[in-house]
């Protein structure tokens, strides 16, 4: 274990973006202090370290904050150089970043729509998500993981789908049918979740499903949840405010 008492991570237990950073820290063997945030009552430290987005995760290294989970991943990789997560070759790095951004932006958008919406809009989102899963499935042809024989940056970036997609499906009552339609992707999900660093660092499934089920209920109470691009901001009356009131893109 690399001794690094100067590393702190502000997070929230149900957030996939936070877990992504924890997986990276564990892969590198970096010790860190974890601080659980109540997102309905954010700590002054969080607001000081991330005044722009006011979101988790925030990595604080020697007092200096780094925000946005994919930015944090690259920071971790460049600061602690053992067990590199990104390849060395510029073209391979570009491909890794491409797939990470694709999933972070596009797949997340369609997953959210499939989760929050109903009727035709829900069906359309599931359709779009399946087109995206097909692309991911093809990318995995002949590979155990997106990064090759071992998990790397791309797997950590896409990893939320291995766990949280299933959670979203159960909480919101839809099926993306990847086990039937996308064998490579389905196999990757199992292999990824079986990796020790991942397996030992996931929230409890039932608790997470319950959380997202309640989150969906709250989301349905308002019309404003698509206002902000790339973020889901659930505006709810004061009396109903809860710890998940502002689960944004981080």
């Amino acid at each position, binding site marked *: 274990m690399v001794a690094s008492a100067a590393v702190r991570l502000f997070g929230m237990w149900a957030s996939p973006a936070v877990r992504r950073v924890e997986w990276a820290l564990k892969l590198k063997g970096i010790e860190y202090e974890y601080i659980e945030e109540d997102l309905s009552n954010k700590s002054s430290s969080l607001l000081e370290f991330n005044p*722009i987005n006011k979101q988790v995760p925030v990595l604080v290294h020697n007092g200096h904050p780094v925000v946005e989970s994919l930015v944090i991943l690259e920071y971790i990789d460049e*600061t602690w150089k053992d067990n590199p997560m990104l390849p060395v070759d*510029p073209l391979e790095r570009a491909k890794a*970043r491409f797939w990470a*951004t694709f999933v972070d932006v596009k797949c997340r958008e369609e997953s959210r729509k499939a989760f929050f919406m109903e009727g035709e809009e829900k069906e359309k989102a599931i359709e779009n998500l399946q087109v995206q899963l097909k*692309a991911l499935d093809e990318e995995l042809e002949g590979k155990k993981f997106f990064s090759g024989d071992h998990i790397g940056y791309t797997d950590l970036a896409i990893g939320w789908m291995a766990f949280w997609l299933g959670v979203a499906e159960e909480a919101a009552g839809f099926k993306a049918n990847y086990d039937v339609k996308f064998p490579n992707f389905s196999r990757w999900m199992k292999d990824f979740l079986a990796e020790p660093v991942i397996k030992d660092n996931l929230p409890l499934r039932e608790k997470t499903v319950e959380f997202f089920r309640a989150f969906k209920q709250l989301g349905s109470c308002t019309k404003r949840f698509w206002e902000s691009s790339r973020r889901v901001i659930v505006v709810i009356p004061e009396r109903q405010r809860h710890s998940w009131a502002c689960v944004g893109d981080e």
Partner: protein
Amino acid sequence: MASEKGVMLLDFWVSPFGQRARIALAEKGVEYEYKEENLRDKSELLLKSNPIHKKIPVLIHDGKPICESLIIVQYIDETWSDKAPLLPSDPYQRAQARFWADFVDKKVFECGGKLWKLKGEEQEAAKKEMIEILQILEAQLGDKKYFGGDIFGFVDVAFVPFTSWFYSYETCANFSVEEVAPKIVQWAKRCMERESVEKTLPDPKRVYEFVCYLKKRFGIE
């Protein structure tokens, strides 16, 4: 994909995302072939090179495509690393640069689009948002020459193409960037003193003509 040697850029003249790639290539002194795409009739090469998004810009280097403008700029920086580094060498400074480039990416274009697409209260709300975005960026710039400090860097490349849209934003939404964010305007002028930027960015009046054409096409008054 045919393994042709050389660099090609599939692009569209007014795209700020394409301009990022052009500026980065110029800063590095890389020779390349520019191919203007008709976005209403995309070439087979574009569709084959970027099957997922089907968008420009696409950089094709020795037959291999690279997509997404900020990924392209990082690729250019890492491949032609001997000259004009766009990202700093310190990991923390690099993280800061990536954060701010990502901030520009998430905020400026979409909000800017609202300024010319919307009217009335919605446009007013978008204007308030744009002013806030510009002031946040201005605070980040501070009194530095560039966002990268003394060096013209990643965030400068990410943001400067949008400066040729300022005139369109101001005209459509009735406000002045100089009034709300004077340091940003000064920074834009300094960037325009660089050949890479001066030769790449279109005249703001041409951009405005394009916006007017889009408004007509989409039936926006």
